[in-house]
């Protein structure tokens, strides 16, 4: 790899014009990548890592964006000042990109085969039968089973992982030399993520692709990277071979980041075993969705939950773990009466939730609160933080008299680690982690006893995830809350949950105390979830060598 780098970014500075002046997205960023090498740009949201990638593809809107200075060289040739036509030629043919959300980047009204063939015809390489033949080839290479038939399917008929495979297929269709992958696995389940990473590595071996991978996920980064660039606030804080950066980080920020990696060895047992009468007792919960048939089709039913039972004791944390489609979110929706159960009972302090009348339900909703997955959409964008947090007091008139609201909102904001003056801002002015703190403050506003967290941290950066979880743990100890913590990420609950319920296709497959479950998983599925976390690349090399 002593040859000249295939792509080099030198001193890239990009500004965005915003309401209050210029905001510098990247500041003097330089990195380069060689053929057959994987460079990972690691950073949390807002660190400028995606902006760097967009600049390479010429995807920055100007205005509001502005490339202040810097060069991007492809094989020594500067592409920033290149004529648009030449650059278009480069994009796709030589440099390709895949994005985080494959559903948003595939056109829903065309078959995937059509969209793949379009790549060939737009670039004038092949048309008609030839394009189709090549597209089938591509689908086979990215591991779509039975590509001849699947060619004529529409994007929504594929699973998330398969859609990402198709996106990768479109990106490599023209045989590019550089592949930019912007958070390619963030939206996927752990086991699917492992497969996609494996596919990328396979393609790299076969084609000698240079991969620039952008991610916030430390484990993914460790799994893929030859070299790593760590970004924070638009600047590069550390750069080097992956192993060195991970095992001996030099910069303080990197050290802090690395400490957020879930520690697999340590587990502190919480002293007081939860006991007493259960707060929540769920028996044989079943939910069947009736799918509307076509005009003549037969009625179809989807069993989302099948005889799920569990109990939750006061002050206890119950983790519900499963991949997407396992029905874990349905449990939360049913418990909060956001959807009606088909069968079964859920007793809250002896009263069946599904049979409560309006008054009881109102009282119940004071005691059981929910924190939603996506902090971006779970708050009304037109309300400021003060109105969001004080909303429970508008609804339940007897909690707090109006003059004290201001004071209490400030108190709650401080409790979740925000500043009182944040109350006058709007949700979009906060980062994902801060928004989730606001959502937690709202949930705490009416002094709940049980907090249901539905994937409450999965939309957040790793180090922020840890912060939110330790905030939740802290609140548990201070306020004596009981949690139902729903997640697809098993390792993350290891230090947090007392008991874990593993779900698959609407059924509970395993239940047990956290540590016992991690040590001796009974079911294959549980074992797979535990082991699905990506392993560092240097370990893999060792494993292969031995």
């Amino acid at each position, binding site marked *: 790899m002593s040859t000249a780098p295939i792509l080099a970014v030198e001193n890239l500075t990009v500004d965005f014009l915003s309401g209050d002046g210029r905001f510098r997205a990247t500041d003097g960023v330089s990195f380069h990548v060689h053929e057959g090498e994987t460079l990972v740009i690691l950073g949390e949201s807002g660190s400028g890592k995606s902006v760097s990638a967009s600049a390479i593809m010429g995807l920055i809107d100007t205005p509001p964006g502005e490339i202040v200075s810097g060069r991007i060289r492809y094989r020594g040739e500067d592409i920033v000042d290149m004529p648009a036509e030449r650059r278009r030629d480069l994009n796709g043919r030589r440099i390709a990109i895949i994005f985080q959300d494959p559903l948003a980047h595939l056109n829903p009204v065309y078959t995937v085969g059509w969209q793949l063939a379009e790549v060939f015809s737009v670039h004038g390489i092949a048309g008609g039968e030839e394009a189709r033949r090549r597209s089938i080839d591509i689908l086979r290479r990215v591991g779509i089973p039975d590509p001849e038939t699947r060619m004529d399917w529409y994007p929504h008929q594929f699973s998330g992982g398969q859609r990402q495979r198709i996106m990768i297929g479109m990106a490599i269709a023209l045989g590019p030399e550089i592949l930019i992958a912007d958070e390619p696995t963030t939206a996927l389940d752990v086991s699917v993520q492992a497969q996609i990473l494996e596919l990328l590595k396979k393609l790299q071996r076969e084609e000698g692709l240079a991969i620039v991978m952008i991610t916030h996920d430390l484990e993914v980064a460790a799994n893929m990277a030859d070299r790593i660039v760590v970004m924070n606030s638009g600047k590069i804080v550390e750069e080097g071979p992956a192993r060195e950066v991970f095992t001996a980080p030099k910069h303080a920020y990197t050290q802090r980041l690395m400490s957020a990696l879930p520690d697999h060895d340590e587990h502190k047992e919480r002293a007081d075993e939860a006991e007493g009468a259960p707060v929540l007792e769920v028996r044989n919960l079943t939910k069947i969705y009736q799918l509307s048939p076509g005009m003549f089709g037969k009625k179809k039913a989807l069993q989302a939950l099948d005889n799920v039972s569990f109990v939750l004791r006061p002050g206890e944390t119950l983790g519900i773990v499963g991949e997407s489609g396992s029905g874990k979110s349905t449990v939360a929706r049913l418990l909060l009466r956001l959807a009606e159960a088909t069968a079964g009972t859920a007793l809250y302090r002896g009263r069946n939730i599904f049979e409560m009348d309006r008054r009881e339900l109102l009282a119940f909703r004071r005691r059981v*609160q929910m924190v939603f997955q996506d902090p971006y959409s779970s708050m009304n964008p037109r309300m400021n933080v003060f109105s969001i947090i004080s909303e429970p007091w*508008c609804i339940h008139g007897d909690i707090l008299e109006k003059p004290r609201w201001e004071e209490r909102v400030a108190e709650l904001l401080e409790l979740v680690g925000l500043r009182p003056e944040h109350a006058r801002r*709007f949700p979009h002015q906060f*980062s994902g982690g801060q928004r989730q703190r606001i959502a937690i403050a709202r949930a705490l506003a009416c002094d709940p006893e049980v907090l249901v967290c539905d994937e409450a941290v999965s939309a957040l950066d790793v180090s922020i995830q840890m912060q939110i979880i330790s905030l939740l743990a802290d609140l548990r100890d201070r306020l004596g809350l009981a949690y139902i913590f729903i997640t697809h990420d098993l390792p993350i609950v290891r230090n947090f949950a007392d008991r874990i319920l593993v779900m698959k296709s609407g059924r509970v497959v395993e239940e047990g105390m956290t540590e016992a479950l991690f040590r001796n998983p009974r079911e294959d599925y549980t074992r797979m979830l535990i082991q699905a976390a990506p392993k560092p690349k240097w370990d893999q090399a060792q494993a292969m060598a031995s």
Partner: protein
Amino acid sequence: MSTLSLQTPDAEKRTASGPARIFRLLLRDPLATLAFAFLVVVVVCAVAGPFLIGDLIEKPNFRARNMPPFSLEQGFAYILGADTLGRSLLARLVVGARNTLGIATAAVLCSLVIGGTLGLIAGYSRGALGNLIMRATDIVMSFPSLLLALVVLFSLGPSVPNLVLVLAITRIPIYLRTTRAEVLEVRERMFVNAAVALGASHSRLIFRHIAPMVIPTLLTIGAIDFATVVLAESSLSFLGLGIQSPQFTWGSMVATGRGYLANAWWVAFWPGLMILLTTLSLNILSNWWRTYSDPQQRWRLELARRHRK
């Protein structure tokens, strides 16, 4: 996280609202300012015009028959020319603003409020009521609006309130269907679910969470619809079922001037221009308001000023 803390150093100051602040932001956008100024002039004309102009609108001046615009021979009142009876067009435009704006505003407001409310109900309730409302709308929509107007006005007799009633009824479906479609979408958003989980009542969900998301769209449609209503009213007047002479509106002025387009274009042109400009201004202003009322978009207004500097 850095992005956000950098972007919003004076967020506290910015979120303070109030008429003075809105006005200051408005002045930063020249186009919106112009639109606003024009509407103020039109409204002043509508309110004070009849007292100031007096009987000039009635007075035939045979020396000024079909007088072309931009000549001061007959005094300033005839700067925009005169119609076939030699009446000052400027004076008639000023006085006509009252009837035009009055009828159109009342009709648009009525249909907006009724259509919006029914749309909210139809979108929010999943039961039979929603279906009933939708089918009733279908009936109104399937009936040619001009025919409906003719029947109603013929049986009730032409008068301003009846005119408003007819215009409002024929426009209701537009607001109703738009509102319903938006409500159906907003209702499924996560923050509405979050409010349900907090125990929010139906009225709170509708008025606090759903309506604020829908209203900007309705206002925009209302602004565009304004022109349609003015023209519909003029075609009814043309048929003799709308406003009755000697009363007149801009629409009826266009209708009268239509016959003289070949030799006296200005008779129809000026009122037509006024309708166009009023609608355009309303449109610009409603667009501006939509941007302003959305906290996520408001920075665009603040950015616009900085960019021009």
